[in-house]
């Protein structure tokens, strides 16, 4: 209706009075010439509206050309054209009406229109209604993106109109959803808004909640009695939502009470009335407490030199005679109550979703701890060797991955190559460490701890000398980018899924090696009774060496995995070492299921604390450590403890 009126006005205002025929594109452009020439974001609106309102199909081309700085004006008569540049520097002008070439001109005869970015954005919005029905599917999708980014009431009608002819099912679904959302926000008809809200009640989409929130926006109103309008609630002074001082400030702003005299204002007034070292009779040196300053000020007040202080009694009295209300900006109670109900339903479901998301987070954190700890589960859990350089083996694995990526640019190939290479490097390092250090210190666990710590210091510094102190990237292959989005609340990145799968693989590998292979059998034999094992023809030195190497090698692979989502630095090992030992100890030494349970418990607990106190991940770790110390009170041998007389020694 409005647009029709506008079009009529346009027709009436045409300069050349060519009333007989419908206006051409050029006529319309000329009618808005002044605005178009001096286009600015503030003034251009009516001109664009007029062009769009004409309903001429060519307007899409005009607007697109204008937006792309492809519209030119002939200086001679001020007409607007599209133009294309010839090789010799001249331009061919094209009429917007039918695309026909009109003339060839030199560049001096024409002027390019250069709309600024603000104007271009407005043109883009205007274009949206054309693009909604464009034959090009990507343009339609772009148009929907544009509307959802920046919805406005005027776009509702074109959107609705475009639904009927839509052929693509995806685009159609998006259009329908957007139409529902915009109906809630912009439709003038209350029942259809309520219907739209009820239709989508409980929806998990961020867009739905983002649409409801402005509908439910409120303003705080001070009034002696209940005000007119759609009252959301009365706010009680002194509640969490409204403190006494905030309430009084509102009252002052509304003009219902005098401004409080702050301590600063009081002091300024006092300083302004110093007279011969005294203020209202009080010596300045005495004004070293709040009470005396108040007295001095009151003395100034009685002399009429200052406005009276607002006392607590005054404030209470003022507040008592007013009430405070939150009033919906939206006037319709039906809409707001429907929106409140819909939002509550959504939030309940969102809470469930977040709990599920938290569970996934905890699971992936647990997988990381498990990955970092599984090598330790072998060296510490099975062999009883405490290796403080375990974290540095993780770091070596990660750096191996980094180095491989320097030579193999294909990320998939480089990761596939890095995994066995990292295993080989850290296996070698582990075997060397075992032969040179650990072997000489069996049954002296504290000495082993200290010596391997020395190795850890040296390795860390060595890595720093080679790779520098800055973090090195280990880029994951592109197929691991992105996330598996279940809905707007629950999502898990592919890399975390990959780590979870890797953790499971390692668990299987560990079980296989320990229970099904000769090495596992020999390892168990050597750890339980080395002398007996030796007398049965097992070489304990060899078995210990291989087992230690295996544990170290697994740490290296874990390093590649951890490097994919965390930064590779020389200090990354120390971030994991304490946690890894905790995982093994809490779970129960010597039992891989215990390590799994320990990782699950620590990961779950940490995420749980972070959920209760999301701003503070540091606190979560502190609480986790306190929790572990207390947990050990109740299960000193871990979650899965080996019982028996041997365990008592």
């Amino acid at each position, binding site marked *: 209706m409005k647009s029709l009126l506008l079009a009529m006005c346009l027709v009436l205002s045409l300069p050349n009075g060519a009333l007989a025929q419908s206006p051409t594109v050029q006529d319309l452009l000329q009618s808005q010439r002044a605005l178009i020439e001096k286009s600015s974001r503030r003034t251009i609106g009516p001109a664009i509206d007029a062009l769009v309102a004409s309903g001429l199909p060519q307007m899409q081309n005009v607007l697109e050309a204008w937006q792309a700085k492809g519209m030119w004006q002939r200086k001679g008569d001020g007409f607007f054209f599209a133009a294309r540049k010839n090789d010799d520097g001249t331009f061919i002008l094209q009429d917007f009406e039918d695309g026909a070439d009109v003339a060839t001109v030199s560049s001096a005869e024409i002027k390019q229109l250069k709309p600024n970015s603000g104007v271009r954005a407005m043109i883009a919005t205007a274009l949206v209604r054309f693009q909604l029905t464009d034959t090009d599917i990507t343009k339609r999708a772009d148009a929907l993106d544009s509307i959802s980014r920046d919805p406005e009431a005027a776009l509702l009608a074109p959107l609705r109109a475009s639904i009927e002819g839509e052929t693509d099912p995806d685009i159609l679904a998006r259009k329908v959803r957007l139409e529902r959302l915009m109906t809630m926000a912009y439709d003038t008809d209350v029942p259809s808004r309520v219907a739209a809200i009820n239709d989508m009640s409980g929806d998990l989409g961020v867009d739905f909640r983002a649409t409801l929130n402005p509908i439910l926006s409120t303003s705080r109103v001070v009034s002696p009695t209940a005000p007119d309008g759609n009252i959301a609630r009365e706010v009680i002074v002194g509640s969490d939502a409204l403190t006494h001082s905030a309430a009084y400030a509102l009252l002052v702003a509304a003009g219902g009470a005098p401004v409080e005299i702050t301590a600063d204002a009081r002091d300024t007034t006092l300083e302004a009335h110093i007279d011969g070292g005294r203020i209202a009779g009080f010596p300045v040196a005495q004004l070293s407490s709040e009470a005396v300053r108040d007295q001095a000020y009151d003395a100034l007040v009685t002399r009429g030199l200052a406005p009276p202080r607002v006392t607590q009694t005054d404030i209470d009295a003022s507040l008592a005679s007013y009430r405070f209300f939150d009033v919906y900006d939206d006037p319709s109670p039906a809409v707001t109550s429907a929106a409140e109900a819909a939002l509550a339903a959504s939030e309940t479901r969102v809470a469930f979703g977040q709990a599920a998301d938290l569970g996934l987070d905890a699971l992936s954190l647990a997988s990381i701890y498990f990955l970092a700890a599984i090598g330790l589960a072998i060296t510490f859990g099975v062999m009883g060797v405490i290796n403080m350089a375990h974290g540095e083996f993780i770091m070596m694995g990660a750096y191996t991955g980094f180095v491989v990526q320097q030579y193999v640019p294909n990320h998939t190939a480089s990761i596939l190559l890095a995994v066995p290479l990292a295993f080989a490097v850290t296996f070698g390092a582990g075997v060397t460490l075992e032969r040179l250090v650990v072997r000489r210190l069996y049954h002296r666990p504290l000495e082993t701890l200290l010596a391997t710590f020395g190795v850890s210091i040296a390795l860390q510094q060595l890595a720093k000398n080679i790779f520098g102190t800055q973090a090195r990237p280990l880029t994951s292959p592109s197929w691991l980018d992105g996330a598996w989005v279940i809905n707007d609340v629950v999502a898990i990145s592919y890399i975390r899924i990959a780590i979870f799968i890797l953790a499971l693989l390692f668990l299987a590998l560990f079980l296989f090696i320990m229970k099904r292979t000769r090495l596992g059998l020999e390892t168990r034999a050597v750890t339980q009774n080395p002398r007996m094992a030796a007398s049965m023809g097992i070489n304990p030195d060899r078995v210990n060496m291989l087992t230690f190497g295996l544990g170290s090698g697994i740490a290296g692979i874990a390093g590649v995995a951890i490097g994919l989502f965390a930064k590779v630095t020389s200090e990354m090992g120390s971030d994991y070492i304490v946690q890894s030992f905790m995982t093994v100890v809490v779970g129960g030494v010597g039992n891989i299921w215990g390590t799994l349970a320990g990782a699950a418990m620590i990961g779950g607990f940490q995420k749980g604390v972070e959920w209760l106190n999301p701003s503070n991940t540091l606190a979560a770790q502190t609480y986790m450590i306190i929790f572990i110390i207390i947990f050990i009170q109740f299960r000193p041998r871990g979650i899965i403890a080996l*019982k*028996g*007389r041997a365990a*008592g020694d």
Partner: protein
Amino acid sequence: MSTLLEVSGVTVSFDGFRAINNLSFQIAKAELRAVIGPNGAGKTTFMDIVTGKTRPDTGQILWGDKSVSLIGMSEARIAQAGIGRKFQKPTVFEEQTVQENLLMALRKDRGPLAVLFFRPSRADLDRIAELAAQIGLTDTLPRVSGELSHGQKQWLEIGMLLAQEPQLLLVDEPAAGMTPAEREKTTAILVEAAKTRAVVVVEHDMEFVRRLNCKVTVLHEGAVLAEGSLDHVTKNQDVIDVYLGR
């Protein structure tokens, strides 16, 4: 003779394996008793239970005139109550001198503050000299105990037990690895000790048990199989079966 220690109906299992099965056992003040039994009969576990190292699943352990229950008491409190234990392997503090070892064992206030301010009096030193004479280590008092021979360590440990002045002595295989002469001396020390207190000797060696010349308790599969003089139990058909195989 009144009962000093009464163990009744005690059962302990480790992961389903019953190490002690409804065991009942009594010993009087000033009695020497030998406990024998094949490997895995529960001899060591029995000692673990009495000294508080292992907590029984069921059963009662009553101690002394007041019949105090020992279950739930810490090892240190049971030791303070008057039960001393000697381990199978000689466990003395090898880096400390014989005198320091004996001083530590001497019956005195065990609280940290009292120990911190403790300085040995003349009487204490006399008592130690007396003990050293009893176990034949007078000359070695200032020596580091790690330098002692195996037998000397065993005696030092028995000496430490005596220094504790316990009412009950639990001795685990005291004669293991000793020369015949050393055994004789050990027997003498134990028999002498049993005149004033109860002594339980766990032993494999029948010859040694015979020399102790005391009542014998035979354990098998965590329960008492037979009790009486050595001659009596060695004639018992069950005991013969267990020792010689069925």
